[in-house]
């Protein structure tokens, strides 16, 4: 499938979210870019963009990060995915931690619509 995401991008991570993501994913699967402001300007605290090359392991790590330790049982996270054909899609993922199918729901929203559960079980 050409539209299967290959790279996932998570902008606007706070330092705490970054630390927790590092705990869930091996460092070799992750890259971070600090969101900077021009030299001389003052601004909001530093946030980071995480870039994840998607593989089964990376996806599992990302999902476990998304489903852990949140203040609210229902929340949204905006991500960007790059498909094999270069298509960039911005998606606001809706997470419902009360749902028994939360993992599969997230995968579907990311574009892994064929058989998300088998992907996670592989």
């Amino acid at each position, binding site marked *: 499938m050409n539209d299967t995401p290959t*790279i996932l*991008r998570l*902008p*606007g991570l*706070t*330092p*705490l*979210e970054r*630390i*927790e993501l590092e705990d869930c994913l091996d460092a*070799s*699967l*992750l*890259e971070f*870019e600090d*969101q*900077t*402001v*021009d030299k*001389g*300007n*003052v*601004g*909001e*605290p*530093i*946030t980071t*963009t995480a*870039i*994840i*090359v998607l593989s089964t392991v990376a996806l599992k790590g990302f999902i476990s990060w998304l489903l852990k*330790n949140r*203040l*609210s*049982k229902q*929340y949204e996270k*905006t991500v*960007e995915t*790059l498909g094999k054909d270069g298509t*960039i899609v*911005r998606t606001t993922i809706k997470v419902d931690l009360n749902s028994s199918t939360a993992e599969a729901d997230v995968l579907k929203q990311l574009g892994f619509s064929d058989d998300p559960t088998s992907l996670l079980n592989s």
Partner: protein
Amino acid sequence: MTAQRFSDLHCSLDGRSWTNPITNATFLAEVKLEQSLKSLFMTGDTPPDVQLAFFHEAMHHWCFLSPVGSTLAFLQLRAYRRAYKLHRDKAASDDEKTALLEDLIRYTTASSLMRPFAEGLALFAQFDAGFWLSKTSAAVSDLNEWANFFFDAQGIDRERISDFPFVPPVRLIGTRLSQQAVESKAGLLCNPLTCANGGYLPGYLLVKSLWSRARAQCHERFKVSDLFLAYLRSFIYDDYGFVAVLLDPFTQEYETANAITTYFSKRFQQFMKSNLEADVERFEKAVLEKEKYRSGKSVGDVLDSGLLRLCTDAEADKSGRERLLDMIDEMDRYYSDPSDNFLHAMNRAALFQRDIMRVGSLPLSVSIAKTGDTTEPSSFHETSQEIVLSSNGKVLLRLPVPADAVQKELLMGCEYDTGALEMMMPYAGLGGRVQVYFPAEVEEGEGEGSLELFFSLLATYRVCAISFNRKPIAYLFLDPSGISDRRADDKAGRELFMYRHAEKAYLEETHIPVLGQILERVVDNGAWWVKETLDDIQEKVLVALDRFYLPLALLYVPDEKLDQCIDVMRKRGFYEILGKDGGLVRALALLGIASSLTATREVIARWFASYGLDLDTAIAALRQYGEQLNQPEILEQGDLVGCFV
């Protein structure tokens, strides 16, 4: 890893909001004008993330619009002008290079030194400041006045604000207790405890420590975090004694840097030792006087009253005021060299538009056509043209242009229907009221344009400026109270805004950036001793920052534990102290925010419960980790709970 980078993409999600200390230009990454048009014109409801960003950047903006902030801007603008002259005249004397170095030392030393404090104030404004804890003070800070003017209480969790039924502004309480605010503060608490990269955590903890100290001295008055914020800002940024040091003609190079560093550090000692009870009373009076000014008094009456002189020696205060006036005078002089005159004029323009805050900007398509081409003529008023603003093919705003509208003020109504804002002529008691001004004849055509939202900190109005091919074609003033009064000074204020807006884009996008590049080139390629001295002083200041800020940030950590506490928090702040438990960091963030709203345990427990958290369990866990290093400090007394983080 071989991931393709996305850095070539324009992505608004990546943006961080910022303020420029020289032009006072702002960018609020969270403002999405396309989605906010209805709220801006009609209802005033704004999402929590926009409100939080507004508080942060508006606080910076307010600080930079002060005697100290203006002095620093002036010093840097003068350095730009001096660098330009050196760039043009390669055979310039060492005296001219020395003068440039002196301005740069003053600006960079003070701005580096003040940066963590500036961020601390902005974060305190974002997460803590409000005027709900006490009814002892009638004074409301400018910041909260602007926020009241800008936002309404829509779109927030009503359950959480039900504990504050009678105390305005309830919307801010809902925002503070929102998930965005708690997550954002939890992120702040995991910042490194160093002054590098902005010094957000040390700056924030410093301001919280000072608040706690001030409350211990005059509890009732400084219960009002809003009054404390305004007082602390004024104590540092309105201090003409500091202006006198920044503009002292009798110091140079290292002596100057030392004088600035010493003065700034002593100022905090003065704050800790001063009689806050008496001073805050004088300060309150000054703030209330300023409010009177809004109904007719002149700014000069207030500034000259001396009420705002807080712990500053009278002689130093006088000297600072004189030096500031000399500085303004220097810009007003006539210079025989035309390019000198031009630079002075542009720098002056940059300095005198610093009250205008840009809240949002939206690039869009503009279409201007004869009325008959697109819509039915109005039955109330003869319209000749219509301006249509659209984005990605979707119409966002329609504005009729009456036949005789140029350079006249027109009162118009507005309606929001089917996803577009419709301006109506004439005003007929509709939902919104807008004062519209067309600066010149509007030429028909289609092309690129923009809609920008501005806010003036001095005149308290909101303005939407519509531009077509980079030229302003219409101004929409959104200020119902001002419009109904129709006072002459309101009209003059609107005219002044339009005059300054016409130059603003050039100043921010061309004038200052080009001069900035020239300055960098002159410093890098000019006399070696200029760069070397500047770098050396900068390095020394950066080393001094941690020594100054960290003990004040950890004011309640005993001396014998201070070094250990700093070591533990150096890389990941409270995450390390709290056993690498992100959930507990979030609980601490919520407790800190909640403690700034109320001390009542029962209320805070309800807020915790709304997030599925148990207050007692959280406090027990925080106490357990806090025992070793006295951080975080949590106070419990009967039915009351407090937290210094």
